[in-house]
C-alpha cells in the first residue's frame, strides 16, 4: 500500500483576506459566467440568437419609464425585506420568517383599513396602520426569538413554520372580509374613498416606497456599523462565548435584534398594502422573504452592496418575465435562470474564502516525510 504515502492531488486551505476588489471581481466573474450559461440555455430552448435574449432581458427592466418604475418598486420592496433580515443573520440567527413577518404586517395594515374605515378619519387610520403593522411584524419575529433566547429552540425551523401559520391566517381573513361575497378574495380595499391609502408624491405612485426604503437602508448601514447595538450584534455573531465573557447579555441582544428584524419586515408589509397594492392576498409578499435571505447573504450582510444584489435579482426576474412573454415560454423560466445565477454566485464564494493548492511534481521529497 504505497498509496498512503502519496500526497493528494490537491488540498484546500483557508485564505486570508483577499481585499474587496478581488473578491468582487470573483463574484462579478461568476455572474458573467452565469449570464453566459443562461444565454446559451435560453437560446437552446427558444432557438433565438443569444444577443436577442440579452436585449430582451434588458428591455424587460428598462424598456419604458413604467418598466423602470416597476423595477425600482420591486427593488425597494425586496431590499426592505433583505435589510430587515440582515441584523438577525449577522448575529448568526437564521430568520427565514421574513415572508411571514411581512405578510402579518400586510394583514395588520389591511385590518386597520377595513375595520376602522367607518370610525376614524384618514390620518388616524394611517397612523394605526403604521403602528399595528410594525408591531405585528415584531411580534411574529419575537415569538421565535423568545424561545431561541430562553430554550435555544432552533430558530431556522421555527421561523420557517411561522411563515405558513401567517399564510393560513391571511387566507382565513381573506374569506372573512371577502368582497364581493363568495369570491374568497378581498379585492381593492376602499376603492372609492381611498381611506388608508398612502399619499402619492406628485405623479409618481411608487416614489414613497422608494424613499422610505432608502431611509431604512441608510439607517441600517449606520446601525450595523456605527452603533453600540450593531457592535454587540457582530460580537454575538462571531462568538457567543466571547460575547458572554465581555458582559453582553446575549439573550437580550437576540430578542432585541429579532424584534427589529420583524418590525422592518412588518414595515415592508405596510408599504405593500398601504402604498402599492391596496389589497390583501396570501401570496402578496411573493416569496420575497426567501429571496431576501439570498440577497442579504450574497452582499455579505452589507446594506450598500445589498442594493446591488437585490437589483441583480429583480433585474433578472423582470428580464426573464420579458423573455417568457416575448418567446412564448412559461413564466417559471425566470426561476430557472435565477436559480442558475445563484448557484454560480454561491459557488464563487469558495474561491474567495479558500485556496486550492495542486500537487506539484517537484514535491516528491516532501511527500516522503508527510
Amino acid at each position: 500500500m504505497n498509496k498512503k504515502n502519496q500526497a493528494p492531488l490537491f488540498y484546500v486551505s483557508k485564505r486570508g483576506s483577499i481585499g474587496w476588489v478581488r473578491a468582487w471581481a470573483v463574484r462579478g466573474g461568476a455572474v458573467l459566467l452565469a449570464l453566459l450559461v443562461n444565454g446559451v440555455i435560453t437560446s437552446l430552448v427558444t432557438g433565438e440568437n443569444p444577443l436577442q435574449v440579452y436585449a430582451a432581458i434588458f428591455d424587460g427592466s428598462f424598456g419604458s419609464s413604467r418598466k423602470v418604475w416597476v423595477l425600482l418598486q420591486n427593488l425597494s420592496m425586496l431590499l426592505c425585506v433583505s435589510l430587515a433580515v440582515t441584523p438577525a443573520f449577522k448575529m448568526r440567527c437564521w430568520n427565514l420568517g421574513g415572508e411571514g413577518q411581512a405578510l402579518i404586517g400586510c394583514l395588520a395594515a389591511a385590518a386597520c383599513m377595513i375595520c376602522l374605515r367607518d370610525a376614524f378619519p384618514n390620518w388616524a387610520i394611517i397612523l394605526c396602520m403604521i403602528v399595528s403593522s410594525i408591531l405585528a411584524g415584531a411580534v411574529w419575529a419575537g415569538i421565535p426569538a423568545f424561545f431561541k433566547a430562553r430554550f435555544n429552540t432552533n430558530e431556522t425551523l421555527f421561523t420557517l413554520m411561522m411563515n405558513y401559520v401567517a399564510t393560513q391566517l391571511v387566507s382565513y381573513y381573506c374569506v372573512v372580509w371577502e368582497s364581493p361575497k363568495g369570491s374568497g378574495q378581498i379585492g381593492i380595499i376602499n376603492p372609492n374613498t381611498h381611506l388608508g391609502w398612502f399619499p402619492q408624491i406628485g405623479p409618481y405612485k411608487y416614489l414613497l416606497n422608494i424613499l422610505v426604503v432608502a431611509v431604512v437602508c441608510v439607517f441600517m448601514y449606520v446601525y450595523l456599523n456605527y452603533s453600540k447595538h450593531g457592535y454587540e450584534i457582530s460580537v454575538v455573531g462571531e462568538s457567543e462565548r466571547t460575547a458572554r465573557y465581555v458582559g453582553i447579555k446575549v439573550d437580550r441582544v437576540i430578542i432585541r435584534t429579532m424584534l427589529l428584524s420583524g418590525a422592518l419586515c412588518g414595515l415592508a408589509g405596510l408599504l405593500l398594502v398601504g402604498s402599492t397594492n391596496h389589497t390583501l392576498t396570501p401570496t402578496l409578499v411573493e416569496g420575497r422573504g426567501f429571496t431576501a435571505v439570498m440577497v442579504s447573504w450574497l452582499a455579505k450582510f452589507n446594506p450598500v452592496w445589498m442594493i446591488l444584489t437585490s437589483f441583480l435579482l429583480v433585474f433578472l426576474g423582470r428580464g426573464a418575465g420579458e423573455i417568457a412573454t416575448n418567446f412564448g415560454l412559461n413564466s417559471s423560466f425566470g426561476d430557472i435562470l435565477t436559480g442558475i445565477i445563484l448557484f454560480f454566485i454561491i459557488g464563487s464564494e469558495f474561491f474567495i474564502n479558500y485556496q486550492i493548492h495542486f500537487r506539484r511534481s517537484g514535491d516528491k521529497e516532501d511527500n516522503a516525510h508527510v
Partner: protein
Amino acid sequence: MFDFLTFLPRAVVQGIPLLLGSTGETLTEKSGNLNLGIPGIMYVGAISGVIGSFFYERANPDGLAALPAVLIPIGCCLLGSLLMGLLYCFLTVSLRANQNVTGLAITTFGVGFGNFFGGSLMKLSGSELPSIILTATSNCFRRSLPFADKLGAVGKLFLSYGFLAYIAVVIALVCAYVLKRTRTGLQLRAVGESPNTADAAGINVGRYKYVATCAGSMIAGLGGLYYVMDYASGMWSNNAFGDRGWLAIALVIFTVWRPNIGVLASFLFGGLYILHMYIPSGMNLAVKELYKMAPYVITIVVLVLTSIRNKRENQPPASLGLPYFREER
C-alpha cells in the same frame, strides 16, 4: 357522522409523499446537512418521472407493458433528484457554501424547473387543459391487490394503495433501523453531531455527507413521483404540489428525527391536511383555512416542547446547518 372509512385511506394517501420527503430529509439532516431544497427536489423528482412516462406513453400509444411503464418514471425520477442532491452536496460539502442559501436556491430552481417543463409538456401534448394526464402509467402505479376490494373495511384500510405506498413505509422502517442499529448509522450520526470527532475517528466525513444527502434526495424525489402518479392519478398541473415539501420538513421535526415514528406521523399530518374537507362547517368557509394551519402549529409546539425538555436524544443533530472544514477550529 364522521366517515372514517373514507377519511383514513385519504389521509394515508396524503401522508405518503410527506413520509417519503421527511424520511429523505431525516437521512440528510442526520449527516449535518439542513437541506431546505427538499421542496424543490420533490418537484424535480415529480416532473422527471412525468417527462419519462410522457415520452414512453407517446411512443406506445396502444397500451403499455406494466414493468417498463413503472420503471421508466421511477428511473427518471431517481436520476433527476440524484442530480439535484449532487448539486447541493457539491456546493455545501465540497465548496462549503452556506446551507440555508443553497437550499433556498435549489428550491427556487426546482419549483421553476417543474413548472417550466410541465408547461412545455402541456404545449407538446397540445391539449386545451392546463395539465398533463398520464392515466395509463398511473393505472400501473395504482394497481392494488386484486382481492383488496373483497375484504371490506380491512381491505380498504390496509390493502387499497399502490405499491409505492408500501415501499415508502418499508424505506422509512429500513432507514430507522440503519440509523439506530447499524455501524453505518452510528457513524452517520457521529458525522452529524460532531464532524470533527468523526473525522478524528477516521470516518470519511465528506463521503458520508454526500451519500446520505444524495440518498435522501432520491427518497424525497420519489415522494413527488408518488404524488403525481398515485395521489393525483397521473395528472400534473403546475403548482399543484403546493407546500407539501415544507410540510415534509415540518414532519422531520415533529418526528424528532426518527423515520419509524414518521410512518404514523405522516398519516396524521395527511389527515390534518385534508381535515378541513371533512369537518362539517356549514357555510363558514373561513374556518377551513384555520384547520389547514394545524400541521404547522403542532410542529411549532413539538419544536418548543423538545427544546424545553432538552432531552439529548430528541435534539436536532448538533452540527446541523454548519459546513465542515477540517482546518477550522
